[in-house]
């Protein structure tokens, strides 16, 4: 019996909300409407070559990389702890990581604004401890903090899920053959959990590089990341062609970097989400 028709609603959904917008994006990126009608052009892409825009792009990628690295450094040990024997029976800690995800993303980010602003909780505590803190809100650090806070679960969860699936007897075999914990970690656990690490990196890097809410709220009104730039072109300037062109270039950059990561992961077994 054929059941393929079950998937039709999803296919329709994808067509309307993914394929069509993507085609529109391509259309706007490479066309210009003149008096003589619509013409193919590379001008929008070329415009991005302007140092001002390149700087924005580089800064976005830079911050996204910093955020991803911090998430990995914090997230891997957390995944290890969550997956360890002592905690795997109690789901409390895992739940603690998931609960913030139930709360609206915007609310969580607004909450950080109140915490970081002058006279806010963090500000007051630092002042009390006599740690110099002229400005907390509206800095690179605040933006990175907001991104790490919001995206950390996306790093922890895939790592955690790969680690819990790891056959415990493989770890025991390594110990049995004379490996202490550090060696087991280096030679067995980390290599075998790479698929989780890679999907974690993907799931943090992609939203981090395109974010515009976090940078707007925690970076201030003049703080421009590539996400803000795109948003501006559509919402403020009304230049859909240039907005689409930036989106297109960003998409290409992301696809290439993911392709490289995926190549690196080849030969390992699944666990990756995509």
């Amino acid at each position, binding site marked *: 019996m054929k059941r393929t028709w079950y998937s039709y609603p999803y296919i329709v959904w994808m067509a309307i909300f993914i394929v069509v917008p993507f085609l529109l994006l391509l259309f706007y990126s490479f066309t210009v409407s003149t008096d003589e009608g619509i013409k193919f052009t590379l001008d929008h892409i070329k415009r991005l070559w302007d140092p001002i825009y390149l700087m924005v792009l580089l800064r976005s990628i830079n911050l996204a990389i910093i955020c991803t690295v911090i998430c990995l450094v914090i997230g891997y040990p957390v995944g290890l702890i969550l997956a360890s024997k002592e905690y795997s029976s109690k789901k409390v800690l895992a739940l603690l990581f998931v609960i913030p995800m139930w709360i609206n993303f915007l609310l969580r980010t607004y909450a950080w604004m109140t915490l970081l602003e002058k006279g806010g909780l963090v500000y007051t505590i630092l002042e009390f401890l006599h740690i110099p803190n002229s400005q907390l809100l509206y800095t690179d650090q605040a933006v990175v903090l907001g991104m790490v806070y919001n995206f950390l679960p996306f790093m922890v969860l895939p790592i955690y899920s790969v680690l819990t699936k790891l056959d415990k007897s493989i770890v*025991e075999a*390594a*110990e049995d053959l*004379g490996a202490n914990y550090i060696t087991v970690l280096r030679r067995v656990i980390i290599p075998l959990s790479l698929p989780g690490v890679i999907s974690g990196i993907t799931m943090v890097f992609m939203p981090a590089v395109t974010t515009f809410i976090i940078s707007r709220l925690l970076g201030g009104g003049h703080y421009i990341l590539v996400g803000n730039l795109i948003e501006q072109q559509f919402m403020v300037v009304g230049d859909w062609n240039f907005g689409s062109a930036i989106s297109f270039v960003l998409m290409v950059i992301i696809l290439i970097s993911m392709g490289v990561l995926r190549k690196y992961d080849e030969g390992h077994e699944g666990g990756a989400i995509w």
Partner: protein
Amino acid sequence: MSEPIIRLVNISKDYDGTEALKNINLYIRKNEFLTLLGPSGCGKTTTLRIIAGFEQPDSGEVYFEGKNITNLPPYKRKVNTVFQRYALFPHMNVAENIAFGLKIKKMDKKTIDRKVAEMLELVNLKGFEKRYVDSLSGGQQQRVAIARALVNEPEVLLLDEPLGALDLKLRKGMQIELKKIHKYLGITFVYVTHDQEEALTMSDTIVVMKDGTIQQIGTPEMIYNEPKNSFVADFIGESNIVPGRMIKDSLVYFAEREFKCVDSGFNHNEEVDVVVRPEDIKLVPEDQGMLQGRVESVTFKGVHYEMMVRSAGYEWMIHSTVMEPVGSRVGLSIMPNDIHIMKKVSTE
């Protein structure tokens, strides 16, 4: 008799309130092939894991060559383990798997290569160096696991049901091979299995376990011929076990009559279990038998027939190369030294 290489003293272990091991005392002699045998949940694997260091006993001590190693982590122990499901490293090829322990000991590459080649030869896997483990069959993976453990030249090799996942024919072959390897290397093997036949074939010493306690320790012949209680008798090979009563030394009452036997040292009229192996009951013409009965069923088993005979209120299992058809009347004859008298075990 050589000195024990491993001694377990008063070992107890609890898993969430259930007692996995109750006060185990055991010593393992150098170079012997010792098998921990018992049904699942009897504590045999836990015992092995305590020797390997993966589990800590709640009480009691583990001694290795006279030194207390109870709290020593696994990576500092001079034992290596062959795991039930092989536990090979999936991200390494065969040679890298086998070399794992040697690389940790920081041996030079030449020595490692030589030792790996030797091991592959020993387990008949020459030419498999570069193969990845998931491309190997179960039997081949098992050989890699054995080679990976043995290459470290452990004093004691621990094997946790290593042949459990293999089919019968392969298992028989591996049993013989393991026995050969044991003889060739001359090290101590501690082997865990629930397969009594495997235990009888391979071991120098068998430790029969049940519910976290040791039931009997002995050579395969001792365990088979003189089981200490009805559990061991039943678990090791097939047995007819019926209740009986000792009249006096060398005379026992069961199945509604008296039998001569060879056991002594019981109280007068003590209630006992009487164990008779199916192959020890002879089929004779009805009027010459000690017991009379009717053949209820016959099953062909290859070498012998298995017949169930109803007599004196019991079903007797009899193994014989001569077949009596279903429904025929037969006599049963049992020799005195084939009757094994056992103290009644307190009800489970």
